[in-house]
């Protein structure tokens, strides 16, 4: 749903107007928003000139919400209502959070994804994330002076389908039109690659606050091709903080401490960790609520010792990703370092040693993801011409369905390039079986119980046949956001069932619409006027796109009558656009879409042909 500036009837937007689009790095620890301005990607600061927005949300009993530094400042005073690192809970059930008991939140185990009871009511991580996104959206609109046509939101490459879906829901809830979910390391590669005109194999090592990703990419003349990705969606700087925190408790002989003191010591631990990146030792002091005084000195060596296993834990995915890409460390031309935790000297050393080269640190590890996302948003918003770069990304984890005996049959292997569709046939195993349960899972293990369950649905109405006679074709489709939808169809009868794989907590379109409607009512904005404005801009866009398609290929691909028919459909649409009738605009736009299907197909053919002529002659008759 595009949210756009409301224009007066008949007042059409200029044909090549710059469309406002942003890239958002929705981080575990910090979030940022960036855009492309006059051809250059820039991070947008808040009114105090700060670029980072701490990903912290505090709920108060009166329902008011604080986000960012303000909320962060209250974390130890109000630990139960101040949600830190909500990203770690996205698309996760309580059983997925081994450390849930040690966190200060009142978790509510809801189906699919945990929720948190706060002073302002029970909140899902999706809602918490939406609060962060809303602030960034407001920041961008204030700074750009108009409403956004859309945003590219980044996610860790290793996020599974449930985590991606949750992120998309959060964006919709914040009223953002999602142009694309983009993998964080891929975004970083765009920013780095375009800045440095890089060619060859690159690795992006992204260690943030709560997630770790490694992606191996091949950069070839404007094509960014992800060859393999791996990671750990529950490993990051937070874990280093906890190691120090445990060390403090041990050194000070503390056992049971209050949530307040815990939040305080975790903050001290993080501060100490960050200082150790600059100096060989650091003093940690704190006064606990019972009056106990903490005064300790932590050296870099001691810190390195206590976190050695965490550092090693990041190298394992690096090895796996290289293996999946069929490469050795020496094949990698450069290692781009992303995420605040790559400032830890021991990480720099370990990564350097593993890849046999000094890692690249010439871009700000905090900003590079947002900048890359902004560049991609600019392309997807249609602000650029033909010779842009192209991104070819992959699914991080294999997708499959449950078969007999609780085993997984993989349908899409990890690291397959998206978008893609793949089908496989299954059959009934009992005589007269009329229904088939389809259980969709994601993961690398052989047993269903070791993989993440994404969805279950049933194909009903299979005519009774002997076992093994029915042919049920299950088609998996992964779109450019990395999101899966599944269709099952019995081939002899055509009985069909289809689902978008939405985890059970997934918000329905109606729920989002209602929540958005509520927020508009509060802002006393008129939903009908917005719908009309959106339809009008979409319609203008379509008319414009069709006109330029006609100008480019109408002559070559259409007869005079065909061309006249399309032109008359455009004229009808443009008449509707001049009026205020939402239904008329939609109908005219639909008619134009319908009326150009064949023309579009011919244009695609021409594109494919063009691609072929490039290398055809030299290779066909070797």
């Amino acid at each position, binding site marked *: 749903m595009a949210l756009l500036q409301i224009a007066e009837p008949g007042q059409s937007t200029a044909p090549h107007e710059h469309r406002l689009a942003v890239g958002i790095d929705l981080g575990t620890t910090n979030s940022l928003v960036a855009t492309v301005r006059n051809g250059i990607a820039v991070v947008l600061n808040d009114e105090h000139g700060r670029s980072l927005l701490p990903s912290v949300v505090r709920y108060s009993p009166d329902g008011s919400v604080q986000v960012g530094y303000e909320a962060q400042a209250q974390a130890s005073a109000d630990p139960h209502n101040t949600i830190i690192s909500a990203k770690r809970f996205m698309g996760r059930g309580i059983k997925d959070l081994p450390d849930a008991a040690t966190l200060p939140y009142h978790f509510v185990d809801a189906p699919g994804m945990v929720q948190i009871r706060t002073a302002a009511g029970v909140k899902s991580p999706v809602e918490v994330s939406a609060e962060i996104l809303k602030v960034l959206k407001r920041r961008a609109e204030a700074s750009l002076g108009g409403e956004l046509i859309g945003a590219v939101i980044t996610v860790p490459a290793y996020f599974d389908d449930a985590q991606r879906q949750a992120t998309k829901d959060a964006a919709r809830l914040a009223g953002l039109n999602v142009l694309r979910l983009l993998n964080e390391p891929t975004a970083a590669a765009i920013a780095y690659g375009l800045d440095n005109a890089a060619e060859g194999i690159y690795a992006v090592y992204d260690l943030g606050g709560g997630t770790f990703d490694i992606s191996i990419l091949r950069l070839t003349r404007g*094509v960014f091709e992800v060859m393999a990705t791996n990671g750990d969606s529950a490993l990051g700087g937070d874990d280093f903080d906890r190691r120090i925190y445990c060390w403090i408790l041990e050194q000070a002989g503390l056992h049971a401490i209050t949530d307040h003191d815990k939040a305080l010591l975790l903050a001290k631990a993080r501060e100490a960790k960050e200082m150790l990146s600059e100096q060989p030792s650091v003093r940690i002091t704190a006064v606990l609520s019972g009056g106990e005084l903490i005064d300790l000195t932590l050296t870099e060596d001691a810190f390195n010792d206590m976190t050695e296993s965490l550092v090693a834990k990041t190298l394992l995915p690096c090895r*796996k990703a290289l293996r999946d890409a069929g490469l050795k460390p020496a094949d990698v031309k450069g290692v781009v370092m992303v995420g605040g935790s790559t400032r830890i000297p021991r990480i720099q050393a370990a990564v350097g040693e593993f890849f046999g080269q000094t890692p690249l640190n010439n871009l700000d590890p905090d900003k590079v993801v947002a900048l890359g996302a902004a560049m991609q948003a600019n392309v997807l918003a249609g602000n650029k011409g033909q010779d842009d770069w192209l991104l070819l990304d992959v699914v991080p984890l294999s997708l499959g369905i449950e078969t007999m005996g609780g085993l997984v049959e993989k349908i899409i292997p990890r690291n397959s390039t998206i978008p*893609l569709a793949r089908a496989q046939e299954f059959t009934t195993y009992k005589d007269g079986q009329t229904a088939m349960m389809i259980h969709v899972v994601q993961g690398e293990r052989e047993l269903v119980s070791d993989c993440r369950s994404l969805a279950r649905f049933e194909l009903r109405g299979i005519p009774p046949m002997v076992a093994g006679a029915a042919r049920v074709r299950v088609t998996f489709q992964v779109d450019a956001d990395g999101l899966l939808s599944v269709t099952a169809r019995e081939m002899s009868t055509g009985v069909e069932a289809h689902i978008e794989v939405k985890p059970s907590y997934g918000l329905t379109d109606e729920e989002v619409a209602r929540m958005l409607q509520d927020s508009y009512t509060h802002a006393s904005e008129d939903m009908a006027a917005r719908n009309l404005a959106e339809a009008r801009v979409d319609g203008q866009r379509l008319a414009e796109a069709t006109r330029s*398609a006609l100008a480019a290929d109408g002559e070559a691909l259409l007869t005079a009558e065909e061309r006249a028919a399309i032109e008359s459909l455009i004229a009808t649409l443009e008449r509707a656009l001049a009026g205020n009738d939402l239904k008329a605009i939609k109908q005219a736009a639909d008619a134009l879409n319908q009326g150009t299907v064949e*023309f579009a197909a011919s244009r695609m053919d021409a594109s494919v042909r063009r691609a072929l002529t490039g290398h055809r002659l030299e290779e066909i008759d070797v």
Partner: protein
Amino acid sequence: MLDFNRNHFELFGLRPAFRLSREQIDRAYREIQTEIHPDRFAHAGEAEQRLAMQWTARVNEAYATLREPFERARYLLELHGVQAMDARNTAMPADFLMQQMAWREQLETAKGKSDINALQRLEQAVRGEAEALERELAELLDERHDYGRAAETLRKYRFLDKLLVEIEAAYDEIDG
């Protein structure tokens, strides 16, 4: 009119042969994607965007087949009407099977002892044999056009391909 159902080789503008370099396939793939990827049509009408999506999925599928020697050979044979992996064709020479068993034993031992070096030695041996079979396949498919024998060789190759997958998995297992 371009046919959505043309074969993978035609789609990529490559001659239908086993002996294709990875660079040739990759280059053709990138060139097509550059023209048809949905991101190229971000600004186009709905119909074109949908088509771009379908084409890209189709091209990705073709790429996944062409770039893997096993899949490429199997596909070529299919184009020549030979179902190489037909379940009825299971006979294998005894010495080949003995070698397979020996290798599988080595794999189990290496896994049991978490012996990375042994695993690497095994991998090297298996890869060497796989490459020899690839050369044989190229000759049978591209020069002699002996599809019956090519199918036999491919069935052998499949054993090695699967073994290599298991060796990869063993590395992961040993790594923890």
